[in-house]
């Protein structure tokens, strides 16, 4: 009896996660890749996000999981990854990380500039600018995702843009 319930629970959760994957996977993976600056890590984190969505749905099948939830989980995971990387860099245990974090295969100058700027931003500012300009959320929605106020988001966006502008206009 219990087993039957479990099986149906899994299939329901599975189909919902599948729909989420189909709809958001590419965008989410690109977003995370911009945040962490590394395609391999981004794929790992994307996978983790969908796994945790699956586990959550298994535990509470009634819970509505939206794109916002996915972005929230992704952002938190990416931020904790960035913090870990920062410590690694600080301890200079892993010099490779610095080189690898630049490897984004898009060739356009805008993409290179963006990534160069992203590397200089603190994680909170990076999340704010990526959620709004890149993922297309309004500052209210981004505030709900990050758990702050809309004003704080706008402030972070402004500070991030200031850094980015400096990166883009400086002659190499």
């Amino acid at each position, binding site marked *: 009896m219990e087993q039957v319930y479990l099986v149906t629970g899994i299939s329901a959760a599975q189909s919902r996660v599948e729909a989420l994957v189909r709809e958001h996977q590419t965008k989410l993976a690109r977003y995370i890749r911009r945040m962490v600056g590394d395609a391999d890590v981004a794929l790992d984190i994307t*996978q983790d996000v*969908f796994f945790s969505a699956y586990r959550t749905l298994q535990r509470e099948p009634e819970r509505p999981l939206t794109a916002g939830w996915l972005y929230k989980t992704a952002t938190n995971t990416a931020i904790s990854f960035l913090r870990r990387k920062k410590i690694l860099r600080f301890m200079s245990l892993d010099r490779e990380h610095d080189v690898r974090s630049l490897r984004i295969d898009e060739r*356009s100058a*805008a993409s*290179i500039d963006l990534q160069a700027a992203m590397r200089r931003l603190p994680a909170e500012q990076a999340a704010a600018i990526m959620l709004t300009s890149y993922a297309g959320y309004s500052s209210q929605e981004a505030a709900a995702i990050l758990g702050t106020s809309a004003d704080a988001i*706008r402030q972070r*966006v*402004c*500070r991030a*843009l200031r850094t980015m502008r400096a990166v883009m206009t400086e002659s190499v």
Partner: protein
Amino acid sequence: MRGSLLHKEIESLAGALALGEATDADRRAYREHIASCTRCLTELGGEHELARTTATIVQARDGEVWDPQPGNVLRRRSRGLSPVVRFAAAFAITFGLAASALHYFAVPARTAPASVVSYIPAAETIRHGATPAAPQTQQRRLMVYHNVVQMARAPVAPSESRSLAAQPSSRTPEIAAVTVYPQTAPRSKAPASVPVWRDPVWRTVARMTTTSLSETSPQRVSSAEMLQLRSAGRSLTNEAAPLGGETAINPQPPMIAYAEGAEGTTAFEVLIDERGMPTKCVITKPAGYRFLDEAVCKAAMKARYSPKTLDGRPVPGLYRDAFTFRVSSNESDGLPKPIH
């Protein structure tokens, strides 16, 4: 105290402006603050400046091609332990053969045309190097392309700039007397008109044309990669080139160049890393005026490049080009004279 409070507010205002969420009142408040606060103006820029930075992000996003297939993301850890394996297996079944077929067949199919495309210039290069069947006189002749920047000065006339811009496309390429380093890939570029700046009394025009001429000296092989390429024979290379064509490098000589009537040819080499960023600029033939060389190097370092590729992989490479500066003294029509 009051100032710092206002400064905090202005940051959130600027953020709203950049995200396009600002009301008209917000815009007015921002403009008023910027007008009185030089620090904010230099740090944040005008209201359009912020939107332009946001537009760069959008541009970077829209240009992305990286598209991980469902199979790629979810099958990555299928070698892991129990729940992971079960989940991945469930997904593999769900997406079925379609995903795996896409992964295994679509990916090689996508890379194949790319290598075909990159093969063409390589074949061209090799043919240039050793073709016994070519006529004796033609054997060592190489096409040399280079840029000529023609500087002209003319009195300001608002309608004139438009006619000048329309002019270059109808003109035939001009042949210059100065030779520079040969380019491996033949390029055909429409000459571009590059207005530089306006001056209240007279305006100056630096017009760039791409000219070509044949040269008899053998191709200079300077880098180890070049030798490697020749010996390997089957390696496929694409040389580094500026993004947006050679007109992307746009040297803007300082005012003194016009005043001095500085003319000359600057040949330069830019080292391009595997990301397409210029790392170093070397003047291989100075023009005789340092400010011309500096203008060229500054422009070359500002441009972005597509990196050299070897067998489809990006590798550090070298981009060579030259600019010839001419000053036109004909002030009556404002159009550059043909060279010699």
